[in-house]
């Protein structure tokens, strides 16, 4: 008898998604649903992905290549971060529509996976379990970043 609900073999695309930190806890069936909501974009080195001050609409996941996060508009050309494959940025856009706090620019030719807030909000309504798994990873990521910032601030104070 044909089992319509039998989980099929995950495609290479799904395998790649499962290796991304944001989706690491999703099952193949859950990944298939999320996959239907994702977009892929290719950027050349130097191309602006989003500007500081833009209304955040989406989170970006680096599938390949590198992305530079900086604040050139505030006269601060320092790189805040350089992100590689498997990492993500612009994550606060999943939570609210506040302006982007920095500019993202392709540091090398890169492929990005884009997940829109509206799709995520829809997922919260229809598949709360999947959305909660993604949110947990997001919370972990934000927590780690806060700890790193606190540690950096503590180190600075010790230096002073």
């Amino acid at each position: 008898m044909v089992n319509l609900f039998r989980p099929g073999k995950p495609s290479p695309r799904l395998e790649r998604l499962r290796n991304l930190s944001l989706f690491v806890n999703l099952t193949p069936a859950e990944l298939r649903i999320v996959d239907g909501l994702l977009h892929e974009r290719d950027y050349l080195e130097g191309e602006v992905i989003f500007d500081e001050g833009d209304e955040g609409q989406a989170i970006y996941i680096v599938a390949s290549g590198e992305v530079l996060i900086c604040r050139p508009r505030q006269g601060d050309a320092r790189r805040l971060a350089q992100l590689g494959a498997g990492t993500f940025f612009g994550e606060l856009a999943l939570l609210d529509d506040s302006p982007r706090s920095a500019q993202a620019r392709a540091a090398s030719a890169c492929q990005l996976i884009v997940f829109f807030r509206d799709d995520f909000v829809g997922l919260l309504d229809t598949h709360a379990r999947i959305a909660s798994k993604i949110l947990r990873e997001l919370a972990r990521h934000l927590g780690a970043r806060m700890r790193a910032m606190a540690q950096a601030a503590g180190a600075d104070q010790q230096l002073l």
Partner: protein
Amino acid sequence: MSAPIKLAGVPGRGNRGSGPVVWAAIIAATCLLLVLFQKVLWFVVPFLLALILYYFLYPPVKVLIYRGMSREAAASLAILLFLGLVTAVGISLTPWVAGQLADGQDVVSRYMQGGLQLLDRSLRKLEAHWTTLANARLADTVAARLAQSAGGVADHLEPILIGIMAWTPSLLLAPFLAFFFLRDGHRFQRFLGAAVPNAFFEKTLYLLHRIDRTSRAYFQGLINLTVLDTVTLAAGLWLLGLPGPLALGLICAVLAWVPYVGSILGGLLVVLVAATDFPDAPHMAYWAIALFVMVRLLDDFVYMPLTIGKSLALHPLVTVLMIFVGGAVAGVAGLMLVLPVLGVVMVIGETIGVIVTDPRLRARHRHAQALRRKYASSDL
């Protein structure tokens, strides 16, 4: 409506609301589309029905996908179940419909006669109370006019039957289209998104999401409104003791999809049934009218704001004016189509206005084009 697009902290990128020029363009585009749609109604009507069916079947399809079924299988199963249900209902109703069709002309004549008798009785009662009306011989004049213009029942039935037969093939398109919407709808959004340059990608996807949200809310609101109308009317008609309250309620609720005209037709249908099935109790027809007016008020002030009203977020004055404009431009089709078309055109117009007038987005696009040109010729 969603929150307006905010572009904080970037010089020269303020948040501009839609001005009179944008709104004039939105209304002009809506009218133009209505005229065009009127020319291809054979496609627009099944397309709209397919959209309604799509939004109706979308939640169960998502559940099936979540349970592990492929999108193709889930869409096929949902459509097959729906077609099976329609077929089962059709087969179970066939004997009754065949019986009605066999003496269809008699049934229609009987209900027309019932309605005319109610009108005559009501006018004569009015004449008994108002001497002015009696002097004008209102009842006789109206009866003579109606007899003059009504003609035979067959004259009216024939074009209706021919119309139904002509529309049936194109209406069969609806489940076919709905299946492809369910199966490939997500690819369409990706396909459109992929065609947009990187600089405009976020804004364009935001636009597509808003259109999807607007149309989803509108059509799901329409389905909810139809259910609420059907239940309320059926309950009222059942309390009055009219035959087939559920079927009558459903027909009236579906007719109400066409603003104003549909409601009047639905009300007329209920009154004709009441007047014919209870010829010696005219108060039944008056109660049916009272029920219908009450449901319309409930619909306009409670159900509609709870369902469709929220979806389009249109000002009530704009809504009413546009319904009249739609009717004037494209007749009954315009009445039915004007609100969803306006909702979609409004979102497109507002967002295109934001994209086109944003100098930073255009500069980023030029920069990306220059990078691509440089990359393309780097090894030449």
